[in-house]
């Protein structure tokens, strides 16, 4: 009786601790994002106020200004958004196609130097993107693809392919090889067996890889800030710099643009979250 009681008490305490820890962690993760959203709707005075104003007032001034003409503190939001979208979507599609083929090859085929290639790809991931920005800048400038969508897409594909290979390799590896063998016996070519059976089964994994690749491209700043200059190719993260002047930073405007950047990423993540979860808890394939 007493034993049970104390046991139950301990469980309750542990649960409370658990929830508190979770709450604190989530707060640390979420508050900066929340602060950005809040600041985008506050007058500049309030943003800068010390001590902070806890009860925010509401204004759409920053958004109005952002969409206004160039002379009135506006930035070419639509161009930036379009550039970001073109670059991210295209580079993700290409990276997924290449990465998936590579991942499949690593998972299914035996070839000379397989492990060497694999380690090489992973080492490539270890090089920070910024370190490459100067060499890339010089090469791109010489070739004449600086300040173009194409150049940025190229850089992002190279950045995303190793990770995609690594991720999809893991997913394909978990699919028993008997699945494509069964499909081949059922009349498929190797190609059909892949698209009819293995790809649908690994769909969640591929979707997760795609989301990661997309978010990497969508949020990337260091390389983009070097490789793009003009309104025709600057992406949204680079566009944020438009709000910095020599001595001042327009925090409100920056937050407003940041919100426009976060929202599509959030929406996308929500749309594919089912796949993400399924992809991360892969392994229920055994049929």
């Amino acid at each position, binding site marked *: 009786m007493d034993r049970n009681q104390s046991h139950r008490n301990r469980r309750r305490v542990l649960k409370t601790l658990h929830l508190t820890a979770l709450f604190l962690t989530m707060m640390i993760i979420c508050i900066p994002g929340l602060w950005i959203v809040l600041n985008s709707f506050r007058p500049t005075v309030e943003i800068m106020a010390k001590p902070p104003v806890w009860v925010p007032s509401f204004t759409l001034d920053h958004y109005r200004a952002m969409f206004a003409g160039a002379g009135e503190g506006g930035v070419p939001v639509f161009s930036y958004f379009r550039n970001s979208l073109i670059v991210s979507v295209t580079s993700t599609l290409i990276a997924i196609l290449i990465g998936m083929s590579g991942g499949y090859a690593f998972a299914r085929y035996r070839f000379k130097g397989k492990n060497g290639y694999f380690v090489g790809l992973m080492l490539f991931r270890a090089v920070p993107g910024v370190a490459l920005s100067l060499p890339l800048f010089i090469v791109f400038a010489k070739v004449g693809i600086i300040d173009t969508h194409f150049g940025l897409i190229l850089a992002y594909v190279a950045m995303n392919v190793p990770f995609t290979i690594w991720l999809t390799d893991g997913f394909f590896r978990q699919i*028993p090889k*008997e*699945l494509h*063998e*069964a*499909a*081949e*016996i*059922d*009349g*498929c*070519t190797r190609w*059909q067996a892949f698209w*009819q*059976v293995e790809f*649908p*089964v690994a*769909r969640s994994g591929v979707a997760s890889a795609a989301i990661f690749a997309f978010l990497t491209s969508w949020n990337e700043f260091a390389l983009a800030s070097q490789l793009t200059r003009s309104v025709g190719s600057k992406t949204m993260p680079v566009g944020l710099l438009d709000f910095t002047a020599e001595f001042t930073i327009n925090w409100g405007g920056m937050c407003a643009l940041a919100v426009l950047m976060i929202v599509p990423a959030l929406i996308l993540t929500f749309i594919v979250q089912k796949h993400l979860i399924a992809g991360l808890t892969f392994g*229920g*394939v*055994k*049929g």
Partner: protein
Amino acid sequence: MTEVTLSKVVKKYGQHQAVHGIDLDIQDGEFVVLVGPSGCGKSTTLRMIAGLEDISGGDVTIGGRVVNDLPPRERNISMVFQNYALYPHMTVRENLGFSLKIAKRPEQEIVKAVDEAAGILGLDELMDRKPAALSGGQRQRVAMGRAIVRHPDVFLFDEPLSNLDAKLRTQMRVEIKKLHQKVESTIIYVTHDQVEAMTLADRIVLMRDGHIVQVGTPLELFNRPVDTFVATFIGSPPMNLVDGVVQGETIVLNGSISVPLPVTAGPLTNGQAVKFGFRADNLMPIGHAVEEEGAVHELDLSVTLTEPLGTETLLFTNLAGVEVQAKMFNPRPVTPGEQLQFRLMLDKCHVFDAKSGQAVRG
């Protein structure tokens, strides 16, 4: 007509040779079981027939056509895998109809064939479920259904029952046999379980280390094993083997007990080292024996352990220093240590050369 022939078929994995040039003729409609200990090359052989594994040497013919270089889809075979390999993203209905869909058959034909297969295997209730929502036995059925939908020339089974529990395995064994009677196709079936091989096969192919050791009907392998390996692999419990030396018309077992030479034994030389083999069924306590014709030798042995099985009891005793098993029919309780008089049915005994292990038979 779909005979399957293997001639001098070899499989090498790099340096390692998994299959050493095997020859095998399988008749149309025959149920052939490849059996042998794990790692002996059964799956490799089956997969070469299926086209899932390259053939390193020799020829495989299906229905008179050399298929060495044909992909699996052009061999008109179907296969049931040990882990079933059901398509997890498709319902049972889609799994069953997949091969016909790939072959671009008309919709009504697919529906008809799928319903027919479902009827045969009792899958009607499960048609809209995904494999994840099925039990092991049900998955097994779906895998078999998927195989029969296409009416292939040859069915290949690779240890299809080894993931099932004992009771279900016995059940499915019967169903597979019934299925064979119904479809009348050639079946090549791989298992490591000699009971499965004995109960299912028209003909058993017993393999070891990439070689075929013996081919024959279950009773041939049971009654006339070519060597000690076959003798101990087929039959449960395994055949008792006792070392001995030929002396005139007798064999002296381990230098102590002598038994007359079985009349079935072939030419033996005086002093030849042999292994004397007999099954538990042929060593029975007097009064609890199955009456049989033929020469009998009587032995007094003491029982060390008993295993009652209901209709019979296995008795463990000691013959010339070797533990051997005997069978007591119409059993009565026996206490360990009890001395019993046994009859050894000499006509059913086997003599193997001690060095080569080969049977010496007249």
